[in-house]
């Protein structure tokens, strides 16, 4: 007997929503994500071992909640068009249907647990045949070959496929190098001399930082900035040299990029 996962709230991604929404009467749109994370960490500390399945499901849940909340915050404006509202309602209906289905089966599984517990009170007889009869039984190895044994073991020892977290529902970060380039050209002349760390201090997503780095490299290539690093992995210094022979003013897309097409970071993914 290992540990008891005493966090039914976090057992499934939809469970969490369900629990918060129904039992605690929490408005999903006013949910404090950090408090959920705190609760979760507290519950993990009570476990004797980290259950990866539970942890993964929690991360997925957190991602779903974060996305829902983000959309809510972004679509707060009054000039929402009807189509967008409709889409949100559709999404809500879908989620609602899934939550109901999920809850139905969760309750069904509880009733199965009760059946199992009751059945467990009786233990079946499995003593089997008495000695004189065993010899009568047909040869179980009829038709079994050494190759069958080999195959059975190879199948057993084969590495088990690792479950993959499905992230398709998470909206990709829409940061583009072109936009960042424009932002840097507007910002750097005033800063004069700065560091990469300072430039990216406000960023949270690693992808955004990467996009900043790519934009800086582009500027360096064009002679608009000078980059310097005192030591390997040391602070990256950035100095503004001027617009050079390119006009960066209001027109960010230039010869370095495909005409008119600002590259999405997705294209830089492995």
């Amino acid at each position: 007997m290992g540990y008891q996962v005493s966090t039914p709230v976090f057992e499934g991604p939809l469970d969490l929503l369900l629990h918060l929404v129904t039992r605690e009467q929490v408005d999903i749109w006013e949910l404090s994500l950090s408090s959920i994370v705190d609760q979760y960490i507290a519950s993990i500390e009570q476990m004797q071992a980290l259950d990866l399945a539970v942890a993964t499901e929690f991360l997925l849940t957190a991602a779903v909640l974060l996305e829902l909340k983000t959309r809510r915050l972004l679509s707060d404006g009054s000039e929402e068009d009807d189509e967008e509202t409709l889409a949100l309602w559709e999404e809500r209906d879908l989620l609602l249907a899934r939550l109901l289905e999920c809850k139905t089966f969760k309750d069904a599984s509880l009733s199965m647990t009760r059946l199992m517990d009751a059945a467990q009170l009786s233990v079946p007889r499995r003593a089997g045949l008495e000695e004189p009869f065993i010899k009568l039984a047909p040869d179980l190895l009829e038709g079994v070959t050494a190759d069958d044994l080999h195959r059975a073991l190879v199948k057993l020892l084969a590495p088990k496929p690792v479950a993959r977290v499905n992230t398709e529902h998470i909206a990709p970060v829409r940061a583009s190098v072109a936009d960042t380039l424009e932002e840097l050209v507007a910002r750097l002349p005033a800063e004069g001399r700065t560091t990469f760390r300072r430039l990216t201090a406000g960023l949270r997503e690693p992808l955004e930082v990467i996009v900043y780095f790519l934009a800086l490299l582009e500027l360096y290539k064009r002679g608009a900035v000078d980059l310097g690093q005192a030591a390997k992995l040391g602070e990256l210094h950035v100095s503004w040299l001027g617009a050079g022979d390119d006009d960066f003013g209001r027109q960010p897309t230039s010869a370095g990029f495909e005409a008119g097409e600002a590259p999405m970071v997705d294209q830089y993914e492995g």
Partner: protein
Amino acid sequence: MVEIEERRAIEAVLMVAETPVEPNLLAQLLELAPARVSQICDELAQSYRDEQRGFELARVAGGYRFQSHPDMAPYIERFVLEGQSARLSAAALETLAIVAYKQPVSRAQVASIRGVNSDGVLRTLCQRGYVAEVGHDPGPGQAVLYGTTPLLLERLGLDRIEELPPLGDFVPGPEVMDALEEGLRPSG
């Protein structure tokens, strides 16, 4: 065959069987009608109850078997130190419920209901012998379809899977629906 012999033969066979024995098989062995076998088994079960035996004759997973009386569970627990089947995780139980009620069902269907990839849980259930591949989807892709096994019925103490309480019993009531609708309103 005299009646007492029929009764004795059934008792003897069930004593050496390792899994529930179908009435049809008993009928074949004893050259009796299956209905008669069921009748004798019911009478036997009743006689053990009347005599307050420590065991009972139960109908499980489509057959008959001897098992210890539930009242004696405290003694059995002391005797069988390890043998008890380990409890299933909540994830495994949910998956099992989906397979039990929706069978035959594909991995993708299970995953879409649970909201997460459930391949690992399904594999565990197959390994435990509670769930098995029962066929292939006739549609494109020919997805493997899963169903429950007689072993699961044994574990549940049920004779047939249809004895599970109807799924309708578990559909959330209007108050839960209201709470969900309230909580999920997209514009505040």
